[in-house]
């Protein structure tokens, strides 16, 4: 076990997989000589060379297209889109190629690619650099969508994503890169498609993604002091969703809050809430509460920005409401 930052855990997965499998290549903007704007790809070019670790031009469509084309021919590309706000620039490649071709061309091809990106508000990065767009990609069939919260999961899930024969969109969070946690040394794989119970509880299930998991854990502390035992579930894989873990929890607690940093209307929380409503209907003692960002672009000034996203206080209030 080592105590690593989230960014270091990602780095360790990349290094180990690139050593293990020479078909793994890395490319994106500033990932080569600079080592990435969040330093996730630090020194990779130095160890693995300029063929396998490339700086691309500022061309998101091509970053995605390169990944898909190369994956089709036997490589395992790990491409980076610097901000999830730029992901829509390559949405055509994701939607009309990565999703479509394996379905249409069947066994003729495999697309074992990973598209890494990061999002999240609160850093004062402005409206065009602070989004959470998982709902957009989770909507697309054939893609796997992963959002690790802890450093250990960052390493384990990235390793699993690299080894996965399907295209994986791997969404990190700018506030998670510097968080610390215990990370197993050596080979560490976390199964894609499994949620995790981060804190057991009996009174209310809080299902959250990415940074919102940490916010929910803080809320759980406050709630515990009020006698409300919240169970926190980290979704981890948004698609395919581990409904079994979530439903089993709601069957015990009878109350549920979903917390996601994307915009509330039509957001990922809506899919969670609908699924829970369908599968756990007879167990609910209160409506499913849904927390998301206010339906507006992220404003720059701090009090405005922070007011638009869920936080522990809002989660606590929602939980108290459910207990009435």
């Amino acid at each position, binding site marked *: 076990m080592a105590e690593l930052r989230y960014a270091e855990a990602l780095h360790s997965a990349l290094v180990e997989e690139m050593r293990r499998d020479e078909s793994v290549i890395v490319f994106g903007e500033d990932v080569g000589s600079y080592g990435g704007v969040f330093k996730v790809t630090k020194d990779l070019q130095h160890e693995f060379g300029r063929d396998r670790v490339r700086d*691309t*031009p500022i061309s998101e469509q091509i970053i995605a297209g390169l990944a898909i*084309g190369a994956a089709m021919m036997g490589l395992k*590309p790990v491409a980076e889109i610097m901000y999830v706000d730029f992901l829509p620039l390559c949405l055509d*490649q994701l939607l009309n190629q990565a999703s479509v071709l394996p379905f249409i*061309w069947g066994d*003729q091809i495999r697309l074992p690619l990973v598209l890494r990106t990061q999002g999240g508000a609160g850093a004062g990065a402005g409206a065009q650099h602070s989004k959470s767009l998982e709902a957009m990609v989770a909507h697309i069939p054939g893609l796997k969508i992963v959002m690790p919260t802890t450093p250990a999961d960052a390493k384990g899930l990235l390793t699993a994503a690299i080894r996965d*024969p399907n295209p994986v969109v791997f969404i990190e969070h700018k506030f998670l890169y510097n968080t610390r946690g215990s990370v197993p040394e050596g080979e560490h794989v976390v199964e894609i498609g499994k949620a995790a119970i981060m804190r057991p509880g009996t009174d209310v299930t809080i299902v959250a993604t990415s940074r919102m998991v940490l916010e929910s854990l803080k809320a759980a502390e406050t709630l515990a002091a009020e006698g409300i035992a919240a169970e926190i579930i980290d979704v981890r894989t948004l698609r*395919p969703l581990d409904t079994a873990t979530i439903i089993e929890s709601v069957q015990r607690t009878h109350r549920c809050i979903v917390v996601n940093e994307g915009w509330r209307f039509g957001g990922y929380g809506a899919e969670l809430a609908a699924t829970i409503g369908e599968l756990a209907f007879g167990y609910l003692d209160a409506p499913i509460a849904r927390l998301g960002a206010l339906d507006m672009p992220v404003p720059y000034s701090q009090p405005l920005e922070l007011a638009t996203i869920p936080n522990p206080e809002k989660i606590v209030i929602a939980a108290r409401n459910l207990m009435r």
Partner: protein
Amino acid sequence: MQNAPSPEQHALLYRKMKIVRLLEEAIGKLHREGKTRGPIHRCDGQEAVGIGATAMLEREDIVTSSHRGHAHYIGKGVATDRLMAEIMGRATGTCRGRGGHMLVADREAGMLGGCGIVGGALPLAVGQALAFQVQKKANVVVAFYGDGAAQIGACHEALNVAGLWKLPVVFVCEHNEYGLTVPAREQSSVSDIVLRAAGYGMPGEMIDGNDLLAVHAATSRAVQRARRGEGSSLIEAKTYRLLGFSTSDVGGYQPASELAHWASRDPIPRTRSLLVKTMGERHVAALDASAAEEVDAAVAFALASPLPSIDELDAGEYVQGTA
């Protein structure tokens, strides 16, 4: 093949062009009889580009195509009957009826593949070429696109990175004068796309796309450059589509004089005359008959093939196991 086909190879290339033309006409007939689904993009008049630019490729070389790819498919070696079955949505098609004419792929033949998004295959082509480069293979990618696609963002990004990284891609721009119903002069800031080759740091060549031998020669040169590790090339093949943009085109925007001009430069009669001179009418007539037979058999095969079962839709969403 060298930069020019041998007489036997020339004859076979003519036969392939004839197959494409007869296939397009058969599709037209079926469409009029109400037996086809959705709009189909015929390439009548452009056969020399697709057949000529694929003639010298190996099986392991890859071709990416567009929405108007029937000549590309036949040129790269996709079986005529499985192609026709795919166009008719049959379970015996190259993609089990899931793709239709715009999304045909045949891994064995190196066709990867059709694409219904204008310019959408160009990013894939550079990705495929990247793999060849990293794997240190001598294979190449031939990427077809049109003068319409030459204006889309993906095209510029693809050509830039191909020129920058010297990827083994041959970009073949089939300039057929139209992007849907709008003429090229109202879509492109330059009338000759080849001018942009220099802008992407690669050599360019403009040719008569309806001259089979010219297409063959230019592409061969570019393919050899790529195999030697010297990077990408751009070939602009001037050609023309004799029919509308698809079977749903109501027409009216191609002036009669223009149509007549290009009909007189139809690549098939042109190639035919050359062959008649070298091997005689009887031989060429036999090629025509053989092509007709193959197309008839392909159509019959397609119409007799079953449609896929909806049970197929129950297969899981993802590929299982590890990569």
